[in-house]
């Protein structure tokens, strides 16, 4: 619970980063969304036990973060937040597929361990890229880009509201946590207290959301948020998109480790 304030700070930090002025921020959001979508599609298209072939793809989030001024520590924190889910999701793979698939020195790895490694690598790359995309674009701009790319309006609007309400619920939860902590003398939240705590939080968030909705309606909101005009695709957007698309295709159909290996004397052509 103590990390709640940190999580909120991270969300706000992402919003702050989205307003930086870097070459990546200046790109039209659709270019970044499309490149990320292509990245994810290529990432998903690799075989289930491929690990080393995925590694060159890390260049995409790393380059975007470096050029976009996104701190790596923030990306690592966000990835660490989602990592437990992937660890649990694939935990049974090493036991399901036990046939030996790779020998590294004296160590023999089963197909299950390779699949687990591949799942982890994909998860880390996907989460890191999504984090960098949001931090270098802004959630609102990203939703607007999705809207312009033809995603269902309801979907992009729901995403936008989800983002806004995350702050509201987070703030309510943080206030409740602080109020409890001041009277708890360091005692952690017990299972017995958790129910009423969560219940109060739900009611308070609900009431807050109602007030926000009333305030939106009072300013003419009728169910759809007004669209912001975004920029146009110019040469830099096409260069960005086509450049990365070429790189992804190379990684996928001519894996770089193999390509590099073939360049060495005695390597396979």
């Amino acid at each position, binding site marked *: 619970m103590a990390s709640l304030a940190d999580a909120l700070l991270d969300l706000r930090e992402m*919003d702050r980063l989205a307003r930086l002025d870097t070459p990546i921020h200046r790109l039209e959001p659709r270019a970044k969304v499309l490149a990320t979508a292509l990245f994810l599609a290529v990432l998903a298209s690799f075989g289930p036990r491929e690990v080393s072939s995925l590694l060159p793809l890390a260049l995409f989030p790393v380059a975007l973060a470096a050029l976009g001024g996104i701190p790596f520590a923030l990306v690592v924190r966000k990835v660490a937040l989602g990592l437990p889910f992937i660890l649990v999701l694939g935990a049974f793979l090493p036991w399901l597929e036990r046939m030996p698939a790779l020998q590294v020195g004296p160590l023999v790895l089963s197909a299950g361990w390779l699949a687990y490694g591949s799942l982890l690598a994909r998860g880390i790359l996907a989460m890191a890229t999504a984090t960098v995309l949001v931090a270098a674009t802004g959630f609102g701009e990203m939703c607007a880009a999705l809207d312009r790319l033809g995603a269902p309006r309801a979907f992009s609007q729901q995403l936008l509201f989800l983002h806004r309400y995350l702050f509201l619920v987070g703030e309510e939860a943080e206030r409740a946590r602080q109020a409890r902590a001041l009277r708890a003398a360091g005692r952690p939240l017990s299972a017995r207290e958790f129910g009423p705590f969560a219940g109060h939080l739900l009611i308070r968030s609900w009431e807050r959301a109602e007030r926000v909705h*009333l*305030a939106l309606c*009072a300013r003419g909101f*009728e169910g759809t948020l007004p669209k912001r005009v975004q920029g146009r695709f110019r040469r830099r957007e096409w260069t960005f998109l086509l450049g990365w698309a070429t790189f992804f295709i190379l990684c996928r159909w001519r894996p770089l480790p193999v390509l590099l290996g073939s360049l060495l004397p005695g390597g396979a052509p």
Partner: protein
Amino acid sequence: MSHHLLDVRDLRHAYPDGTLALDGPTFTLHHGEAVALVGANGAGKSTLLKHLNGSLRPTAGEVRVGELPVHPGTLAQIRRTVGMVFQDPDDMLFMPTVLEDVAFGPRNQGFPVGEADARALEALQQVGAAHLAAKAPYHLSMGEKRRCALAAVLAMAPDILVLDEPSTGLDPRGRRLLVDLLRAFTHTRVLATHDLDLALRLCPRTLVLHRGRLVADGPTREILADRARMEAWELEAWPPEG
């Protein structure tokens, strides 16, 4: 447009739990008037304000804005005429930046982005907050938030400004700035407030709500100085004794 701007007739509102929040207040507001709405906690002030822009539907009675009755079919026009500044500015400031938030109303009114942004900037200038345009709303102080929330409503160019507890949470300097700001407006204004000094400074006329009923409607100075009646309405007289 009629000679009066806002007409409230025998308004009644009962909440789903049976609480009668409004028990028949009736009053009329004229163009350019500044009216304070005072009452103890639970007197029905916020409920009444929410009826003025159609956020709530009455159990009985009627609210008219100019010639228009407030009902679901007229809400779009009503909300163009009646601008409401909510008690907690955090409930209002919802978009990623102050400029986008202030432009939200004009965009919903159908103005193109450029014109909506121009209106938003003008409103921000009016409240002395143009320098905050690119900031995220949650990075602002309470005083700045109040100004931006006010700008968000002003950008829609309403005829009537309705403000719910506008001085809550402000430090003395922020409160003084707010008084100066509101004093400069020529809009018809309705202020629901516990801040009787604010009522006295800004509003020549006061309505007193007590347990949902309108128990006084008259000059602010006279009403607030009537110690016996103020006591009966569970309010403190103003200026205080001593």
